[in-house]
């Protein structure tokens, strides 16, 4: 069974690249969102196994989205990997404090992304 990955990022090019890369392996079903504004409702509809979340987005930011998910019965059980173009310790700290499991700095190699997704979803199987 394919794992469901929800990717939230305001960079549509990035969404396209991740979607192609992950779906090409035939192991993942990918849903992309260009903003986190309705992340909770989308999580309920799509029921992802893992969420890849950009930290800096217009509107609702990654950390806020994390907090929204933490307050949701379904959202709080889904592992989150934070993504960012900036390798800032302050951001990493904030992200880990808000409950994310991993933090990846762009550009992200597909192999690294897949290994992280596998690592955090292995108990789901």
């Amino acid at each position, binding site marked *: 069974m394919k794992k469901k990955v929800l990717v939230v990022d305001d960079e549509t*090019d990035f969404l*396209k*690249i991740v979607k*192609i890369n992950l779906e090409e392996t035939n192991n993942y079903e990918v849903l992309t969102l260009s903003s986190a504004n309705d992340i909770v409702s989308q999580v309920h509809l799509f029921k992802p196994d893992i969420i890849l979340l950009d930290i800096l987005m217009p509107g609702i930011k990654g950390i806020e989205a994390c907090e929204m998910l933490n307050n949701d019965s379904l959202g709080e059980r889904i592992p989150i990997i934070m993504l960012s173009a900036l390798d800032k310790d302050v951001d990493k700290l904030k992200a880990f404090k808000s409950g994310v499991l991993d933090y990846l700095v762009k*550009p992200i190699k597909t192999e690294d992304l897949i290994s992280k997704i596998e690592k955090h979803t292995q108990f789901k199987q």
Partner: protein
Amino acid sequence: MLDDTFKAELLQKYKFAGKIRLISFSLLFFYLLLIKYTGGYSYINVTFFAVILFETILNQPYNFITQRANIYRFQYFQMAADIIAISWMVYYMGGIEAPVVTLAYYAVILWAGVVSSAQAVFFAVGLSALLFSLVVIFEYFGIFPFVGHYYYKMLTSQMFSVLMANISFFFAFGYFSARAALVIKSLERKKYEDSLKHEHRFRAMGHLIEYIAHDALNHLANISGYARLLSDKRIRTAGEEEMIKSIGALAQESTNLLSRLMHFSQKPNPVLEPVGINKVIEDAIELTLPLVRYSKITVEKRLDSANPLVMGEKGRLQEIFIALILNAYDAMPGKGTLAIATALADKHKSIKIDVSDTGRGIQPQDISRIRDGEPFFTTQDAQGKLGLGLVTTHEIVTKHKGTIDIQSTVGKGTTFVIQLPVLQKEPN
């Protein structure tokens, strides 16, 4: 902020002065020892040691005194103590007959001018003149025991003329020292203001760099992502042409972002030229967009289609709008609208630019301080905010023969109204 810096600098100077004073007294002590053994004159006695002790006690615990006392008041005590000590020494070294020692008065007067203010100089001059006169007159008329070291006594008329000459020199020297004090103060202030303006620009840039770097890095990450997809033979079907187009667009966007930042980081060219105000505003919005984009602020612009020209420095004019946009950004931590509108006014003789935000607004008492372009005034409480931009704005607008006004309602928002003279077209 300014006061703290001046105070800290003054403290440093006084600590330094303390060291100089001790070295001078030690040198004087060795000099007097030398003349005692070579020339036979002995000025060294218990009183002289008392003077040295007095100065030493006063100078040593500088850290202790200056941290507890008000340095502005303390410097007057310090000067008074120095002048008393000098007068004491003048007396024990022969009063009017030892005029070389009066040079020490000049040192205090000069010092007051260099580190302090014109008032301090006149305080030093007045006290020096008073104490020197008292020492000389009291010694001459026998109120103090006579300590002359020469074998004749001056005539009264001669004593008074020498005394008056000395006092006149104190005042003349004091006048130049006070003038120097004013010049030094204004230079120091200018230097400080310049450094703060530079710091403001640097801070604004630092603020923008993070977001511009974020966007540029994102573009590069996407370019590298597309390149990897294109090089992967298995995924060739996914639309090569579209990916190549995206790479081109992303590279162009990164170039634009970085070149705008590079232009802003360069020292503005102080050349006056006809500048399209709409373009200046659009460039400022573009430059700040990476920052504003991630906030909950909406930017609205209504620019006059006549696109009037203003005679000015392009880079500096752009600084006005960057400062006002960043100011609005700081004033609206939550949701808000930043609106920039231009319209010809004053029978097409000037262009009116309204930059308004829906932020927290400014208190009425603070508005007048900003209106006056009071340096270093900011209503933004947290350090590191960009309020200093208002000083820069005021200065640039005035330099371009324009005016700036503020309309603000607490809790509703602020509008900065800038009016700049429009470059009139030459009649054909």
